[in-house]
């Protein structure tokens, strides 16, 4: 193999790479939080069968699930640009991720809700609980356990997909890597380091998520 590795170039730029990794984390966390809020609304809209809302929710979910993430990002960036709506690369990637997260999480939430046997509801009711109490103490806590893992996976997915920021010039981890490697042309070194960083980030997320779940959910479901 003729290729000689020059690692020192990469290490010199470590602060910038770490900064990129921070942006990656940042955009994924935000995309997740906003996605959750919207997904809750969409899931409620879908389950209530109130026509116009249900329709909007369905269209949202189906488009999000059935088109590539890359397409969403282009659409947010240049597609909206054609209407004079100018999103910065950060906001474009963020809104595409929020859009998709919301779409997938809607179904997760709905599934989680429906997976709670209706007998839990009647049993709680038979104890004299009001509907709000049933949700507060019985349905939602159980639902949270069931959607916790899918949500973690969605979060990891967001982290990985934010790497598409490279294609709209966003300075997250991949974009930063691309920029830095073009200065010195040390492609392999930079992308290897980026790959390792992604791996570490996702593993850290998964580990902390399972630690958290052990604290949150003591009984099994």
């Amino acid at each position: 193999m003729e290729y000689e590795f020059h690692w020192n170039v990469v290490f010199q730029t470590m602060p910038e790479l770490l900064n990129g990794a921070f942006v990656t984390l940042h955009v994924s966390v935000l995309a997740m939080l906003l996605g959750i809020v919207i997904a809750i609304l969409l899931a409620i809209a879908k389950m209530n069968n109130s026509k116009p809302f249900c329709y909007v929710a369905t269209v949202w979910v189906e488009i999000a699930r059935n088109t590539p993430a890359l397409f969403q990002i282009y659409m947010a960036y240049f597609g909206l640009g054609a209407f004079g709506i100018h999103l910065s690369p950060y906001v474009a990637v963020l809104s595409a991720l929020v859009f998709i997260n919301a779409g997938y999480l809607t179904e997760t939430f709905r599934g989680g809700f429906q997976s709670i046997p209706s007998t839990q509801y009647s049993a709680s009711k038979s104890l004299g609980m009001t509907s709000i109490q049933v949700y507060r103490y019985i349905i939602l806590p159980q639902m949270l356990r069931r959607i916790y893992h899918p949500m973690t996976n969605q979060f990891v997915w967001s982290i990985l997909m934010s790497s598409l920021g490279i294609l709209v010039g966003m300075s997250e981890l991949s974009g930063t890597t691309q920029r830095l490697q073009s200065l010195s042309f040390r492609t392999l070194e930079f992308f290897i380091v980026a790959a390792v960083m992604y791996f570490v980030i996702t593993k850290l997320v998964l580990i902390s998520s399972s630690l958290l779940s052990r604290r949150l959910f003591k009984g099994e479901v």
Partner: protein
Amino acid sequence: MNSLFTPLSWNDTGFILTGVMNTVTISVVAIVLGTLLGLVVGFTRAESSKLVNTLFGGVLDILRSVPLIIQLILFSTFVGAIGYPLDPFVAGSIILSLYTMAFMSEVFRSGFESVHQSMRTSARSLGMTYWQTIFYIRLPIGLRAVFPSWLGVSLSVIKDSALVSVIGYMELLRTSDQLISRTQQPLEILIGVGIFYFIISYPLSSYGRYVERKMAI
């Protein structure tokens, strides 16, 4: 001097169709190879010891925890650097297939494991051999059980195939990117692309959910 910007015209149909065909081709290749490899790996994992599983698991984990786009760039650069440059289609197919395999193997593994131990035992009690149990009982039942998940992974592969554009494969999204540069009409072109993915993906994903619902009953 040539004009730089020319609007979309019927001339471009062939060009777009090539992009469409390329997207379809690489998706099909990745799904087929990913499924076959995934079957083998999934079966091996379902049947083998913890140690083998951990080893396999580690490799699969890497494929699942590094963004596809980085894998594509790294792989295609790396094979070139060691002196075996690959055509974007070949390099893209390899990585996309491996990536697919990583997800498919989990799907099939759970499929194999979903066939209850008692059902395997009752097949054995009829005098069937180990392999007969696999081919007549576990494979058909397991595959049926995971069909919706298989379809789900396949659809995400079709969507993820858009990323192969980064190593220069002229699939649909890269084709349209080029047209956008020339025509400066991003909206029309992007909407067209979106519709294309949607009409492939939507009916299949609806069907998958339908099957899933039917199986749940």
